[in-house]
């Protein structure tokens, strides 16, 4: 038995689009994309709650980006993070599907359950990716690891559906197992034992390594490093001089070395934030205030749900031309009320905000999180507010999010995100 670990990385292929194609067989084989917002104001959950009737075909497209493209769409040039207008220009027949986060989160949780049933430790890396330490479960050798990987793949097919395929990579650390899983898609299975690590890494381009983004690649190219082999022969001292501590990571990556720690510890969040890109620009202070309150309530509600209050607040705006402004403030007393967050966010933004320029995005982030104290404030007004918030939180816990809303935000509606790390409905 080997002394080093065996790490498996699993990554769903075209995740959101594959789940949609699994659910609806008439989308299979078609170029489809799930967009952050899809078509005008379609929010699957909100439509259900209101009992509205929305015909997708007749709706205009709204400002959004492609979250996931199906493999058929990718083959025709549609890429993740592409603006929907650009995607439609490349492929006018592209079907843009409104996202359904509840569906995707169930598939994520099925994947995690399957991995936990076999692995020694499992760490979720994103909505559709996870690492698993399978050292003991595989018997410590790569034949056992391969058989285990095949079993996991069969379980995913049975539990998630044949259309929800995943690529698997197995190696002795996280960096290599991720590189392996991403080297063959869709439905790939790549095993890289340590003795093959140098040859395997040499066969991959620099930008395929997790942690080497386009900017790092450009900086490396300016130093004459254009491949893993040239990076490997580049002196460590020059790398650390150029990239500081990151130089060591680059040097190790070139030699196929990386962390083998897979941790299933759930850590406390460092910050809670919400931002929103609007379908059309905001052009008045009243609109800014209303939408900022909606965001502030979401941030506050999430903090209280997890038992936190915040000592730092950041508010920011992005204008039509993608320039922006923002500021951060520190408080003596931690806050957890949406209204209080709003008032402070407005104070932060008011010296610099230029509403006439057209605001495309607003964001609020609470950081410096501290555990919420159970005691009630001495001042009558604050005590009453805290009591009201507790009652509202109880209503949310019983009936779900979106059950109550401040009267001043009744005409405001945000679509649930279909991107990123967490799903809004789980927050």
């Amino acid at each position, binding site marked *: 038995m080997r002394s080093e670990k065996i790490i498996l990385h699993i990554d769903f292929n075209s995740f959101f689009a594959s*789940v949609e194609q*699994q*659910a*609806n*067989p*008439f*989308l299979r084989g078609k170029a489809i994309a799930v967009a952050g917002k899809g078509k005008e104001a*379609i929010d*699957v959950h909100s*439509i*259900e709650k*209101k*009992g*509205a*009737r*929305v*015909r*997708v*075909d007749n709706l205009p497209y709204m400002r959004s980006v492609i979250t996931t493209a199906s493999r058929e769409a990718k083959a025709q040039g549609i890429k993740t993070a592409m603006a929907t207008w650009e995607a439609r220009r490349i492929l006018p027949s592209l079907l843009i599907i*409104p996202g359904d986060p*509840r*569906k995707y989160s*169930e*598939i994520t949780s099925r994947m995690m359950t399957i991995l936990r049933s076999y692995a020694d430790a499992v760490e979720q890396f994103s909505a559709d990716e996870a690492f698993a330490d399978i050292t003991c479960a595989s018997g410590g050798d790569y034949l056992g690891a391969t058989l285990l990987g095949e079993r996991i793949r069969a379980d995913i097919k049975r539990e998630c*559906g044949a259309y929800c395929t995943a690529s698997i990579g197995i190696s002795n650390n996280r960096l290599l197992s991720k590189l392996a899983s991403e080297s063959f898609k869709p439905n790939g299975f790549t095993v890289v034992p340590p003795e093959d690590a140098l040859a395997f890494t040499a066969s991959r381009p620099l930008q395929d390594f997790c942690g080497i983004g386009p900017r790092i690649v450009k900086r490396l190219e300016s130093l004459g490093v254009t491949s893993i082999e040239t990076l490997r022969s580049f002196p460590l001292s020059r790398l650390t001089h150029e990239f500081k501590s990151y130089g060591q990571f680059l040097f190790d990556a070139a030699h196929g070395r990386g962390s083998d720690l897979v941790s299933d510890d759930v850590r406390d969040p460092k910050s809670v934030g919400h931002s929103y890109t609007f379908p059309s620009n905001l052009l008045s202070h009243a609109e800014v205030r209303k939408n900022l309150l909606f965001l502030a309530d979401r941030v506050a509600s999430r903090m209280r749900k997890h038992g936190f209050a915040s000592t730092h607040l950041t508010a920011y705006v992005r204008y039509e031309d993608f320039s922006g402004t923002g500021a951060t403030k520190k408080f003596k007393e931690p806050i957890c009320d949406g209204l209080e967050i709003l008032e402070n966010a407005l104070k932060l933004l008011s010296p610099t905000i230029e509403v006439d320029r057209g605001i495309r995005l607003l964001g609020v982030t609470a950081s410096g999180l501290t555990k919420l104290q159970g005691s009630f404030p001495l001042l009558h007004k604050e005590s009453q507010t805290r009591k009201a918030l507790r009652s509202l939180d109880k209503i*949310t*816990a*019983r*009936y*779900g999010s979106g*059950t109550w809303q401040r009267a001043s935000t009744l005409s405001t509606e945000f679509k649930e995100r279909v991107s990123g790390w967490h799903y809004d*409905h789980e927050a």
Partner: protein
Amino acid sequence: MHEFLNDPVDVAVDFSGLKVRPQKVRWGNQTYDIQKTNLVHGAREGTKRIFYFSVSDNANFMKLRLDTETLEWRLVEVYAV
């Protein structure tokens, strides 16, 4: 045609072990024979558990919503070729 809606429907189901599978859906004046259950997923609305059934026949995809508190079925999405 791709439509999101929230219409009450009658659903005949088949129980197989712990699994529930819709067999027939009556929507308006029409009855649809379900041929395949493609995906079942759950969600929580507060303490309430909701199940969604993504089903299809030869020409239609339907997403059905079952409220486990009221046992009410709703048709929430239709896609027809």
